[in-house]
């Protein structure tokens, strides 16, 4: 039995109030037990197959490829039930909560996709579900708020700070500190204290496992570059992990440059590469001022609007195995529209960042891009921005 990683190089750890430490131990033991249990794996696999619709297709986006000048294959996580990769993790953790005897689930959400995935898993398994969401994100992602409520979850508005993902995570952690006895916190990304970054990665690596087999079967070769957007980084870590040992494959994480890295209004702690620090229980790359106060992130995409990042990404960066780049709001919007027009696919604004990067980065070889979610939730926000751009 291998242990669950607490550190990735210098990053990771468990910087949380003492009250939570026994719950983190319990979760780690439960995960070690579950991942080696054929019963748990069979139950999860069956749900992923019959309920989520896995394996998700690998799609050769011919017209995008033409526009880019190189072949682009999209891993279609947008076709999962609930419309994003988040369901892979939410189902795995909800099953784990049931094993631990915890019937009350809390979650945070930015874009609403993880909130919807958690609400869905809880409806399926008959669990109580409370989702913390910043009120700015509730405004930006209204359809997802309505979906969560229809699914029987309670959406708790968070008014603190910039009223986005960072504050929603903080509010969820405070709830957990208070209700830890009967509550499991389904964190939505590969962030937070150990064992979460490793647990979420393990549950998301199904993306990369499938994609690697699919591309080998279809193209008879590995991609030159594997590209995924990074907020906390769960779709990216899930996509990258099976390719880490393939030294010839470049791994590219695309962060939100927002209004431009130099503006300071971005969500790109890995690319900006400032002083690392502690946020939400882990030591990792983050956005902070010289006093150690955490800065507000900015991105048009609520799912990338986060000043922290998963600790394993910080280590993949430092060790040179992955490279992190950033794409602006404007570039992401352009890619959003082009993907719609050229492929008949409306991508999530998050995933549009990854597509924008492959479109603008020449290669003659094969790019594999994780299309982490669909963009229906973003229509109002995107149209408002496109409208104002047109008016200028």
């Amino acid at each position, binding site marked *: 039995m291998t242990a669950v990683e607490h550190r990735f190089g210098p990053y990771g*750890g*468990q*910087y*949380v*109030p*003492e*009250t*939570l*430490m*026994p*719950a983190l131990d319990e979760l780690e033991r439960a995960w070690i037990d579950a991942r080696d249990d054929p019963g748990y794996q069979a139950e999860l696999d069956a749900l992923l197959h019959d309920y989520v619709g896995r394996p998700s297709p690998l799609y050769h986006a011919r017209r995008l490829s033409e526009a880019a000048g190189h072949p682009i294959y999209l891993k279609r996580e947008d076709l999962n039930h609930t419309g994003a990769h988040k369901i892979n993790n939410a189902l795995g953790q909800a099953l784990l909560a049931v094993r631990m005897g915890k019937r009350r689930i809390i979650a945070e959400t930015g874009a609403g996709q993880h909130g919807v995935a958690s609400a869905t898993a809880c409806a399926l398994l008959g669990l109580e579900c409370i989702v913390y969401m910043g009120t700015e994100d509730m405004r930006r992602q209204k359809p997802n708020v309505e979906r969560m409520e229809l699914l029987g979850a309670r959406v708790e508005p968070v008014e*603190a*700070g910039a009223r986005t993902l*960072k504050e929603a995570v*903080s509010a969820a*952690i*405070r709830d957990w*500190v*208070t*209700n*830890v*006895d009967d509550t499991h916190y389904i964190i939505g990304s590969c962030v937070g204290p150990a064992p979460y970054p490793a647990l979420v990665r393990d549950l998301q690596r199904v993306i990369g496992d499938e994609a690697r087999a699919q591309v080998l079967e279809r193209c008879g070769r590995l991609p030159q570059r594997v590209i995924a957007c990074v907020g906390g980084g769960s779709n990216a870590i899930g996509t990258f992990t099976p390719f880490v040992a393939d030294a010839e494959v470049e791994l590219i994480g695309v962060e939100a440059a927002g209004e431009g890295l130099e503006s300071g209004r971005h969500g790109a702690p890995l690319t900006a590469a400032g*002083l690392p*620090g*502690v*946020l*939400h*229980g882990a*030591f990792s790359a983050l956005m*902070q001022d*010289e*006093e*150690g*106060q*955490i800065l507000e992130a900015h991105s048009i995409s609520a799912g990338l609007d986060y000043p922290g990042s998963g600790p394993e990404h910080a280590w993949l960066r430092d060790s040179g195995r992955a490279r992190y780049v950033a794409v602006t709001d404007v570039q992401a919007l352009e890619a959003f529209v082009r993907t719609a027009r050229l492929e008949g696919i409306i991508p999530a604004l998050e995933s549009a960042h990854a597509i924008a990067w492959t479109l603008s980065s020449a290669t003659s070889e094969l790019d594999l891009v994780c299309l982490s979610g669909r963009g229906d939730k973003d229509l109002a926000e995107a149209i408002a921005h496109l409208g104002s751009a047109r008016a200028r």
Partner: protein
Amino acid sequence: MIAPDHLGRSAPDHLGRSATSGIERIAEAFEAARAEGRRAALMPYMMGGFPDLECSREIALAYADAGADLVELGVPFSDPLADGPVIHAAGNVALRAGARVHDVLELARAIADRVPVVVMCYANPIYARGLERFLDMLAGGGASGLIVPDLPLEEAPAVLEACDRRGLALVPLVAPTTPEARLARIGERARGFLYTVALTGTTGERAGLAEGLDVVIARAKALTEVPVAVGFGIATPEQAAAAARAGADGVIVGSRLVRAAGEASDPAAAVRDLVLALGRALR
């Protein structure tokens, strides 16, 4: 009632170091409370820089005047995971008013010759400054100890070693959820006192004391050599007295005082009255 001056404490030297170490000063403060026949030492909490820096200096002086045995001085942080709404909001106000870590640590200097100051700071502002530099500033301001609410046992060794080198007390926390074997390991490494969290939750006022607090305290006392101080959810003189009756060597009151500092037209006078009342309840 006033922190006694008869303990032979020497004045800080030119580097701000006291001849008596912070660890010793904290021990003396608990010992003095006991020697005077009081039921528990009183440790009011304040948010440094709230509502603004000058006013928080007056609050610190008011705590000392009103007979606090120790003072817990909070450093504002943008994302305080262990704190409830009152202290969270106070930290935000302090940051918006321009409070900087250095200014807050300097507040300790105003009262450190009268009462030992224990600084409460989340991990990130410490690492951002650099552990050694931060602790030099802490000791330079005359503080006696440090509480880091998001630094559990597993992450603490380097900080503990650096505090020990300076005679600063790294005060750990234990919670009602902490299992016994773990509590013993924390209790062994405790310096100054063991901060026993009275309830499963964040800081903030509660209607009553947590049930079974006497059991929580007895368990903590059995597994550490240092005094056991209790905080979280203790707001009123009645609750403070009840915590002392439940066996606490020290009582920490935070949100109630921070709320008063935010609401009163004369914050220093308001907190002085509250600390006096809390002190009376512990006599």
